[in-house]
């Protein structure tokens, strides 16, 4: 049995020490995780989604629990691009982790502007394009749900960017494979699957909404089967495209499931809120698994998936001689 030599993964140009990243909006501002987790052992931190100008964010309360999940809405609260670049970005990088900057906007111009500002910043290892917000220009609810627009935005960012670009596809879209194909054709290095789908939290006893802005987004373990399906379908259709799984990864086993389904890396969001070291413990789980399977790299898990064992065969302690 060979020991896992390394967890290093190369996502089309961005080399990460482990395939476990901290998801956008769940990693703080560069100060908070210091002391709670060894950031050099985190694959990468994705920043919260940054917009050109400051956003004060959504009304309170912003979070509620749901069955195996949370419903949340921050309204993309962030200081705006320039303050981010001169403050949070530097702090995040100082912690020792690779930084992926998540950019969001409502118009082509905003995405282009952000990409131009982030170019040449040595702290930026990659860009993740947030595509779940409103399209202010075309007056559509979900900017990234439309192939035409996805093509345009991702294309513009990818053409300008000197670092790899990942399109984080909106959750709750019917044609994930089609959108992934569009993003990759437009120049994306890879895709993050998926952003949180729209959700509502409600307190029946008090007859009240739970989230100040009325609606929010669903995150957490509840999403895992949806994430796995998106990852599997896209990986089958586009086997050479780096796929990052996001949604419901909490344990090393969850991460192994994603890698088996075809992901090149995973992100842990909600899990980090409970266990700030989740990205490291999840990576340790992957190592244990690689060692047990005699694999030398996380990529070795891709393509090992077999059809289900017949129920009757696994339910008994004895296998046929």
């Amino acid at each position, binding site marked *: 049995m060979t020991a896992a030599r390394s967890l290093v993964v190369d996502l089309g140009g961005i080399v990460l020490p482990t395939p476990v990243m901290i998801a956008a909006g769940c990693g703080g501002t560069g100060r908070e995780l210091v002391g709670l987790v060894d950031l050099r052992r985190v694959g990468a931190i994705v920043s919260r989604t940054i917009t050109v100008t400051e956003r004060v964010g959504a009304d309170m309360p912003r979070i509620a629990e749901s069955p*195996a999940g949370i419903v949340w809405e921050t309204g993309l609260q962030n200081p705006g691009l320039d303050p981010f670049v001169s403050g949070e970005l530097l702090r995040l990088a100082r912690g020792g982790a690779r930084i992926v900057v998540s950019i969001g906007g409502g118009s082509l111009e905003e995405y282009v502007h952000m990409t131009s500002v982030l170019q040449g910043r040595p702290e930026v290892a990659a860009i993740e394009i947030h595509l779940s917000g409103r399209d202010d220009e075309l007056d559509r609810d979900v900017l990234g749900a439309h192939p035409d627009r996805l093509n345009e935005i991702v294309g513009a960012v990818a053409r300008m960017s000197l670092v790899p670009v990942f399109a984080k596809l909106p959750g709750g879209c019917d044609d994930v494979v089609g959108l992934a194909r569009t993003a990759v054709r437009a120049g994306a290095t890879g895709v993050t699957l998926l952003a949180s789908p729209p959700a509502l939290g409600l307190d029946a006893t008090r007859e009240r909404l739970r989230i100040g802005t009325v609606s929010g987004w669903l995150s957490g373990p509840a999403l895992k089967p949806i994430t796995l399906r998106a990852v599997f379908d896209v990986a089958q259709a586009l086997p050479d495209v780096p796929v990052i799984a996001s949604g419901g990864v909490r344990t090393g086993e969850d991460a192994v499931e994603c890698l088996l389904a075809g992901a090149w890396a995973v992100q842990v969001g909600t899990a980090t809120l409970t266990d700030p070291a989740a990205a490291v413990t999840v990576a340790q789980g992957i190592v244990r698994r690689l060692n047990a399977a005699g694999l030398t790299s996380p990529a070795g898990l891709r393509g090992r998936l077999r*059809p*289900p064992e*017949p*129920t*009757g*065969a*696994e*339910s*008994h*302690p*004895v*296998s*046929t*001689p």
Partner: protein
Amino acid sequence: MKRARAEILSTRRVGAYRSITLVAPEIAERSRPGQFLAIAMPEGRAFILRRHFSIHQASRHGGWAGTLEFVVDPSVGAGTGWLAGAGAHEFLDVIGPLGKAFSYPKRLTNCLLLAEGRGAASLFFLAQELVARHKRVDMILGGRTLESVFKPVDAKRLSQTVVVMTADGSLGERGGILDALPDAVARADAEVVYAVAPAPTLRSIAAFCREHRLPAQVAIEERMGCGFGLCNTCVVPVATKDRSAYENLRACVDGPVFDPSRILWDRWLGELPIVPPTAEPVPAIPHGGGEP
């Protein structure tokens, strides 16, 4: 079929397994060998579905009247683990008895019963009923190790002969139950075969019985959503009566006991392309029920 909030009377270790006795008179009264229970898992945990367990004993008379016993392999997962840890005086939400029971032969006499591991639990119940009907019972019990052979000593009270097979040779002969089948059939002059075992073993048993034109019944397991026929998730491909086609029958209401010669094993076990079932019918034990 009844639903009951049933108190656990007692639990005890039986080799690698945990045996649980419930007070559930309405269910016990109706239970027959081969049938099973659907047991609700505790609220507020990471469980969604019920878990399913074959009935090992159902006492209608005597000191244990109104009790039901089933056997749990606690090593499978969270649900079996939780059940194995449940203690006396706790209550379980139980639905049962579920499924079609083994049928008893009307004319034939010599019955050979084979089981691997905990599968033997329902065969003990069957053996009892067969003996009560003046049938001759012989048994083959298997397991990986001596711990996983179910009640080899008790078997001797019901059975003319008991052959024990273990994969590691720690009890009885080394080998699987299949290895003991031809000899046992000859020795016991078996006329009918009943088996509970992993599906691949059952497939081999089915082939043997077909070859030797022995009527047989097997109890199978398929992953279940409900256990009482609502969801169509527990199906097994079974040849139609005229064997010209097949249907996906629900293991929970159309089974779990089936005539093995009618199961499309290769289709079910998904390892080979679909093959048509044998054209030549094998004599079947009258299906479902038998003498009450």
